[in-house]
């Protein structure tokens, strides 16, 4: 008993940190509140039926986005703590170990559990609508992908109260992350959390490739696809080719840490830098996975609010295809300083600079789209407009980093930190905000308040520049990345950065408030084309979108499908053409499958095989049950379709 208590309080629970006790208390209170609210409103059954087991791509998309926003808050709190610690010399807010854990979880969460799921959520929501499909190609698998992501997220996040967080950076370099230098469960959380959620990402990639290739409505040819759908297709392709590399790398390091292999170790024949090599073989394509969909969103938003067809559609598509190819040819720029030699470094310098070319082409496409457009400045458009100059700053400093010789100076300084936040925030995060606000009325039946949205935009955008612009100069002044104390001479700029971070936090708080405010007071949407200027099929549906999306579809003969429909007076509800619709049934199996893998992974994290093996067996049992599941879905009667459409469109719609 005593031994157990020693283990429980000594190793299992993380103890001795006031901040962590605070976090534990707030997590406990938060969970109690959620459980109480759900029980009070008798909402458990509703949650299970309508969301957890749902195979509806719209609901799955919304669940992804909610998870991503929660993770943005968690990663954001990490960021604020880092900025507080580095605001003044001699701060003792965080000790060095705690600081290491926080930049590691911040980076990992922001990339894997915030940026990617946010974009995947928007893809899930919008892509089937844009191509006139009733769902994705494999709806059951889509739900399974979500739960694999969600349980991976849970596994990664519990590390900070149970067992301790990983602390070797989001890049998790060997030998620092190996068993010799880093014993205990922390790094295992990283390995298995990412492994588990990676299954879902790969699944999403496959699902969207098939959906886009096979499920397009008649007349929507490849060269008429909305550009966001194109960007999703290219992203899915990169996912399918890049994620297996991560899977293998994670598995190899798991072998090292849990089963005593010596692949990345210093001892034996291990090659620690092979980890860096494999990590970035996946890692660079990964950054395109989180930027291309954002490009797609900006293209949609800009052409919508400029009321013009996208300028240079074909160039846009080819640029993305070329970026997808090149993204596999640049990975060494992340470790030029390894010293692979002049030949290797020159090659990767040049390929890296080449990527700037198609990206530049896209910038001119956006500018060309706006040229002579009748632009209005709704909030999604504001984010898209702010993206262009801010992203260019990130891109130009990226080209500076691409020069191998110069990189020996910039490497691992705040210059780099500034660069990647300029591309990740001004690109990915602005894109997520833009897309969320853009499609929000289709998701929830009301817009977000425009005025609060503008306050949010200005606070966040200015705060972002105040926070990250000084970091370029801190880098020049020699401030290394991942350092937990600062020298006095860095104080003025570093303190400025912290002030900027607080502005961003304030902006985000306004956003969260606007969700509540708009839920209470915003006008409800009565028609499908929320902004009045929609161009693609997603805007042709009624609001709220019927669960089967489209009752009927016309033949399409041009790009910007909905523009053509509006001209011809067509809708997605042609009374005379309505037929029964076949839809897939919900299923609780994916939840249990991934719960089983979660248990198995948690067991592996602690090297408890008595737990890991039964978890794995449970997983196979649920898979077995699935293979005897002959549910063929259900049919929606024409009567029901008429009722739903008429309720959504007003009685006398034709």
């Amino acid at each position, binding site marked *: 008993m005593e031994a157990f208590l020693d283990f429980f309080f000594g190793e299992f629970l993380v103890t001795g940190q006031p901040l962590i006790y605070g976090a534990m208390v707030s997590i406990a209170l938060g969970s109690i509140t959620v459980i109480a609210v759900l029980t009070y409103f008798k909402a458990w059954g509703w949650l299970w039926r309508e969301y957890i087991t749902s195979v509806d791509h719209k609901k799955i998309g919304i669940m992804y986005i909610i998870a991503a926003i929660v993770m943005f808050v968690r990663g954001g709190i990490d960021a604020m703590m880092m900025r507080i610690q580095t605001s003044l010399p001699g701060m003792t807010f965080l000790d060095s170990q705690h600081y290491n854990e926080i930049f590691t979880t911040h980076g990992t969460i922001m990339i894997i559990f915030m940026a990617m799921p946010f974009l995947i959520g928007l893809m899930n929501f919008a892509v089937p609508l844009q191509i006139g499909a009733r769902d994705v190609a494999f709806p059951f698998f889509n739900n399974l992908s979500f739960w694999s992501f969600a349980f991976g997220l849970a596994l990664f996040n519990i590390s900070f109260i149970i067992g301790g967080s990983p602390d070797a950076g989001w890049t998790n370099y060997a030998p620092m992350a190996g068993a010799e230098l880093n014993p205990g469960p922390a790094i295992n959380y990283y390995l298995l959390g990412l492994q588990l959620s990676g299954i879902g990402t790969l699944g999403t990639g496959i699902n969207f490739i098939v959906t886009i*290739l096979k499920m397009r409505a008649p007349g929507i040819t490849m060269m008429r696809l909305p550009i966001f759908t194109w960007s999703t297709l290219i992203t899915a392709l990169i996912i399918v*080719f890049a994620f297996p590399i991560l899977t293998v790398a994670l598995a190899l390091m798991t072998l090292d840490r849990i089963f005593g292999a010596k692949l990345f170790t210093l001892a034996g024949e291990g090659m620690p830098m092979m980890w860096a090599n494999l990590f970035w*073989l996946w890692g660079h394509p990964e950054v395109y996975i989180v930027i291309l969909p954002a490009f797609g969103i900006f293209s949609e938003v800009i052409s919508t609010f400029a009321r013009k067809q996208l300028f240079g559609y074909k160039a846009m598509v080819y640029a993305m295809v070329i970026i997808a190819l090149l993204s596999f*040819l640049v990975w060494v720029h992340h470790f030029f300083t390894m010293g*692979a*030699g002049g030949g290797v470094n020159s090659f990767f310098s040049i390929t890296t600079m080449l990527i700037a070319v198609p990206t530049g082409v896209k910038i001119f496409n956006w500018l060309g789209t706006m040229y002579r457009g009748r632009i209005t400045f709704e909030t999604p458009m504001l984010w898209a407009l702010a993206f262009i100059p801010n992203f260019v700053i990130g891109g130009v400093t990226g080209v500076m980093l691409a020069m191998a010789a110069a990189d020996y100076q910039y490497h691992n300084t705040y210059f780099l930190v500034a660069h990647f936040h300029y591309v990740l925030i001004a690109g990915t995060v602005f894109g997520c905000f833009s897309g969320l606000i853009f499609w929000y009325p289709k998701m929830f039946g009301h817009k977000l308040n425009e005025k609060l949205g503008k306050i949010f935009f200005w606070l966040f955008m200015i705060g972002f520049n105040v926070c990250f612009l000084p970091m370029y100069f801190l880098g020049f002044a020699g401030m290394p990345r991942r350092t937990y104390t600062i020298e006095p001479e860095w104080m003025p700029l570093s303190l400025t950065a912290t002030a900027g971070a607080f502005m961003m936090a304030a902006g985000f708080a306004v956003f969260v408030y606007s969700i509540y405010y708009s839920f209470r007071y915003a006008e409800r949407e009565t028609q499908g084309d929320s902004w009045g200027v929609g161009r693609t099929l997603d805007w042709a549906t009624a609001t709220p979108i019927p669960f089967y999306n489209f009752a009927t579809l016309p033949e399409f003969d041009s790009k910007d499908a909905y523009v053509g429909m509006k001209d011809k007076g067509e809708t997605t509800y042609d009374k005379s053409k309505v037929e029964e619709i076949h839809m897939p049934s919900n299923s609780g199996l994916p939840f249990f499958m991934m719960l089983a893998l979660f248990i198995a992974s948690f067991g592996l994290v602690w090297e408890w095989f008595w737990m890991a093996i039964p978890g794995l067996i449970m997983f196979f049992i649920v898979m077995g049950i699935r293979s005897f599941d002959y549910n063929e879905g259900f049919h929606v009667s024409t009567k029901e379709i008429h009722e739903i459409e008429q309720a959504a469109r007003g009685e006398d719609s034709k």
Partner: protein
Amino acid sequence: MSSHSESRFPIKHLIGYIASIVLTGAAAWIALGTELPMGWIVAGIMALAIIQAGIQLFMFMHITETDSGGIQLGNMIYAFGIAGIIVLGSIWVMSFGYHDHGTDGGGSETEEHGGDH
């Protein structure tokens, strides 16, 4: 799923299955049961592996039977390209001498593992 509607005897599958077993056995024999030099062994099992992959694609994965052959072909070429980049690229990038145990490494131009193993 229902595209396997041909109810005939699955002769293709049977041939594929037997061929795979034979090829796998041959590879094991070359590697374990012969005294050939290392280079020959590697070349031999690589050649068998490529034949094996072809059998999988034609006998089991129906690559000739779909109407989207172009997509399949493009996809496979792309996949081989990426696989090549990963393998050859990694070898090129990582043979910079650091793992030459015993010297201080770090940028010297020697080949990996300096030849003694």
